[in-house]
């Protein structure tokens, strides 16, 4: 009963989730919920299935068993095109390798995100967002000309530009020293909070262990 009520209003709801590749179990999560606007950590060593779980949360792959719901919508049950559209609007993703589109400028990358989600262009929003992420002068720059820190902030900006209800980040701090690690996590938390988005970070970085109130520990798999 308690479970059901927790699932009802949850931003992220996982139940009985299993994911196999070639008969090998990669991931096994019984139940996990994140309330709207909350911030949570998926913590586990390499090979524990963090990225797999993130892909499942983003609707990029389909579970072998169980269900993943985002904002109350079951991802696996949606038709492919609807899932793509839902992901574009409701889920922002910051990948470990940032995957900025090199052919486009910083602002172009943000515009692309709006366009692909079939949202109207929002130049003022884009400007405000770049401002907030300390990228005000870099709108016309190419990704190749950005520093690593700038590029990561652009990736975060792109994940936020469609005002998603869920922000996912994969290993955002793995390559950073302590000072920068703190700065990036603070930035993600602040920006997610400012926009009312639920934040889920997947990481093996134990430095983040105590920063987040909610945590899912994924065990290492042999």
């Amino acid at each position: 009963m308690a479970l059901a009520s927790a699932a009802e209003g949850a931003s992220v709801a996982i139940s009985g989730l299993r994911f196999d590749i070639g008969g090998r179990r990669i991931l096994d999560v019984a139940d996990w919920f994140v309330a709207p606007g909350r911030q949570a950590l998926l913590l586990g060593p390499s090979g524990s299935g963090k990225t797999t779980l993130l892909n499942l949360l983003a609707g990029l792959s389909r579970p072998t068993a169980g269900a993943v719901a985002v904002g109350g919508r079951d991802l696996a049950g949606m038709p492919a095109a609807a899932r793509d559209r839902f992901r574009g609007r409701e889920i922002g993703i910051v990948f470990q390798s940032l995957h900025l589109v090199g052919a486009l400028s910083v602002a172009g990358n943000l515009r692309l995100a709006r366009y692909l989600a079939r949202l109207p262009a929002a130049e003022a929003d884009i400007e405000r967002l770049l401002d907030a992420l300390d990228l005000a002068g870099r709108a016309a720059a190419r990704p190749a000309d950005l520093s690593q820190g700038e590029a990561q902030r652009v990736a975060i900006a792109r994940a936020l530009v469609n005002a998603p209800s869920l922000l996912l980040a994969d290993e955002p701090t793995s390559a950073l020293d302590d000072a920068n690690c703190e700065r990036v996590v603070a930035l993600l938390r602040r920006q997610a909070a400012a926009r009312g988005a639920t934040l889920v970070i997947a990481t093996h970085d134990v430095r983040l262990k105590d920063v987040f109130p909610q945590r899912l520990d994924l065990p290492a798999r042999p």
Partner: protein
Amino acid sequence: MNLFLLSLAYLRVRPLNALLNVLLLAVGVATITALILFSAQMRERLARDARGIDLVVGAKGSPMQLILSGIYHVDVPTGNIPLAEAEALAGHPMVAAVIPLALGDNAAGFRIVGTVPDYPAHYAAAPAAGRLWRAPFEATIGAEVARATGWRVGDAFVGSHGLAGADFAHDDHPYRVVGVLARTGTVIDRLVLTAIESVWRVHDTGRRETEAVAETDHDQDDAADEGDSREITVLLVRYRTPLAAVRLPREINGRGPLQAAAPALETARLLTLVGAGLDTLRGFGLLLIASAALGVFIALYNATQQRRYDLAMMRCLGASPARLMGQILLEAQLLAAAGTVLGLAAGHGVTELLGRLLPEAGAMGLTGWTWAPEEFLTVLLVQAVGAVAALLPAVRAYRTDIAKTLATR
């Protein structure tokens, strides 16, 4: 942001590659366009010059030669025919009208044609200045002749024997320009028209039984020598009845020294001959387009490989597989469109340039400032080729497995 801008951005990343493919396409399109324009205008011109002429009657020889010399004025005549024979034919019940032409000399490389006012009238050529000839050694010149020589009404010139160049000048018989015809876009623009008597008089003095009027002489001299020895070179004939097409040529060819040739038939034969050469060039153009298509294919195939992260990322951002596929197809269509536009411009430009620089092409009135319907087909062909070249890469983009792609780095 839209798919168009995105495709453009991707093309800008590798400008030399895009440029190479566009240029290859453009050269292919230009080749084919120029050929289309050339053959369409040649056909048009051949048809326009021969319009309303059902039959050309002249001395025996090659029928093609008779048409080329009698209508288009590009080959030497087959010989001459007795005026009496021509007049007899003019009275034939199946003949509606005839126009006699007497050839043999040129003025500054332009043929002097002894004829009757019906000849310019047939091509709807009226004097833009002066008037038509009325007496021997008065000449009315075509627009192109006037332009090339600078002769105006009142100027005098002498003819030379032969059909081109000056090998034997008839200094003793100067012509006087009495009129310049308005431009008609037909063969008459390049002719010097005069009375038949002028040609007779030039050649009758001293050389009457060797060469009468024509450059080449044949065995009609005997016939010409008895009684009225006056000759003409060809007779342009218009039928009174369609039935004549069947009977008249056979009747003429089967009897006496005359030969009849139908322009429609000979022009078709000529086009077949020229057509083989044009087909070869057209094949060359298609080969260029095919190699450009291969270039586009390889470029896009590599691009989908290099951009697999971008493609996966775009799926993450909400793009449906169909949209990614559309982006790749659009990129190919942009290349194809650029190649087509550039190729069409170059094809028309080259055609116009040829028309201005080559005297032969200029004589044909070749111009790039016109369209041929087949060009539309070329445009469709190139767009289709672009789409086919992009199909496999587009399908690859469609099939991008996001999770797997993004995991491999």
